[in-house]
């Protein structure tokens, strides 16, 4: 039986137990409802992005809630303008890409047939490989599966559109109260360490999220300019695809380049189009590695390549593409928390 020396000790014990239990329950619930977990994580990312804007409004003397609503209005305005400007561009490009996909696939099939015809006589094993049949069954089947899953993805997107702004609003409005509440749960002797810990974690996470998104944005812009210059189709869609997949480390840039290279190879008028497209993607990656990462990611969280690949596979099996994007940042957050706690404890003790 736990014996308390005084009333304060008893209260502190209950507070701390309550906090630990609450954190455990939250993690268990979120792991069982991936949709809510993804919405919470996206809300955290969004709140870190909107926080400086909301702070600016607050500095101008506006109440916090009004500042958040103004930040939302501004963001909604930008999204609406982009949507209006790019409807024919982006949505049209996705629709065109979807409708023209059978043509691209048949082009590809013809090229494989031609290639197989040329080399089948020389290399007998090519006949055993049955490349054409394999391409038809796997390749086209996979592509159809991807496009047929778009409506399901869109329906979950609508749920996100409702949940994310709701969560983000409260995260932004009550951030200070939540921080105070968390610190109030801690025993007196950990109060100073707890405050420093929250500050360090916050700074690391904020830097990580902002740098990652900025990096993806700059890379997307580089790809966009490059593909425009070589005159490829579906430029907006392809650069956005490359930017989003660049958020997935290591595998992301390769997956992000596949549609562009495929379009150039199967749809390009000349053979050089594909090599030019590969050059554009490679150049964008080079700019990313040589300039963007050193500048933007001076305080980047270093994670071992093997850990990254394992994390991406775990994320993919748990939450699909979203899991692949969120796995590494989530690990980064947990690593930052662990590092902050361990170093702080070492210093405090």
């Amino acid at each position: 039986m736990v014996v308390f020396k005084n009333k304060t000790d008893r209260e502190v014990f209950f507070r701390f137990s309550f906090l630990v239990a609450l954190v455990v329950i939250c993690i268990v619930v979120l792991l069982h409802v991936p949709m809510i977990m993804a919405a919470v994580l996206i809300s955290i990312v969004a709140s870190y992005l909107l926080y400086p804007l909301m702070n600016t409004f607050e500095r101008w003397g506006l109440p916090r809630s009004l500042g958040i609503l103004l930040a939302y209005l501004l963001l909604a305005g930008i999204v609406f303008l982009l949507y209006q400007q790019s409807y024919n561009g982006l949505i049209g490009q996705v629709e065109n890409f979807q409708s023209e996909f059978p043509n691209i696939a048949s082009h590809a099939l013809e090229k494989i047939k031609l290639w197989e015809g040329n080399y089948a006589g020389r290399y007998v094993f090519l006949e055993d490989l049955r490349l054409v049949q394999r391409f038809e069954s796997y390749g086209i089947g996979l592509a159809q599966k991807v496009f047929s899953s778009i409506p399901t993805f869109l329906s979950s997107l609508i749920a996100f559109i409702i949940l994310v702004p709701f969560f983000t609003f409260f995260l932004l409005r009550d951030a200070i109260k939540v921080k105070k509440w968390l610190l109030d749960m801690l025993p007196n002797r950990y109060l100073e360490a707890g405050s420093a810990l929250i500050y360090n974690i916050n700074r690391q996470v904020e830097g990580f999220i902002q740098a990652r998104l900025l990096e993806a944005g700059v890379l997307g812009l580089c790809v966009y300019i490059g593909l425009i210059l070589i005159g490829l189709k579906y430029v907006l869609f392809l650069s956005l695809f490359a930017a989003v997949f660049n958020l997935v480390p290591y595998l992301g840039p390769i997956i992000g380049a596949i549609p562009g290279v495929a379009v150039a190879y199967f749809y390009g008028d000349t053979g050089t189009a594909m090599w030019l497209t590969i050059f554009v993607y490679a150049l964008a990656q080079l700019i990313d590695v040589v300039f963007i990462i050193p500048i933007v990611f001076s305080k980047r969280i270093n994670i071992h390549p093997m850990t990254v690949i394992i994390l991406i596979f775990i994320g993919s099996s748990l939450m699909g593409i979203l899991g692949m994007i969120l796995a590494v940042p989530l690990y980064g957050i947990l690593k930052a928390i662990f590092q902050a706690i361990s170093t702080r404890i070492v210093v405090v003790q």
Partner: protein
Amino acid sequence: MKFLWSANPFKKNREQEAVAAALKNCYLFESFSVKELAYLKDRLHVRKYTVGENVFEQHQPGTGVYVLVSGSVAIEEESFFVDRKSDKETKKTTVIENLVSGNFFGEFALIDEEHIRPATAKIIEPSLIVTFFKPDFMELIKQHPSTGVKLCLRLAKVASERLKDAAEEIKKARS
């Protein structure tokens, strides 16, 4: 967090009033307006300490300033010296200052980079203490520069006073 059995509205009001009065009378915050004190309210941490507890310990990193609302705190410094006769290292604790309600301590943690506490703050009587941490101070400077400057000036004044006192001590010791 308030538990049902500890939710006494009268007690809470008295406590809040005592905290507000202590802040208003504290040298660091006395020039703050009601609006500025209201901004601070969400960023301050009110804590109860029991006798013998340490608010902070010597040689540990520090991040906050403490205002003593009620009770008593002793600022103690531990030092080690070698006894020439026995050749053993002995610990010596010196009480530098005894603080009473209305006093503040640990203020250099707000301005110092990676501040390490030079002394221990030990509770002598059950105390109610208000804490204000450096991250919140940094945010105050960013969000409300004029309020931040007020606090900065007060801290600078305290630092200059301490420097003068130290110079006097050195002068005395030399003569």
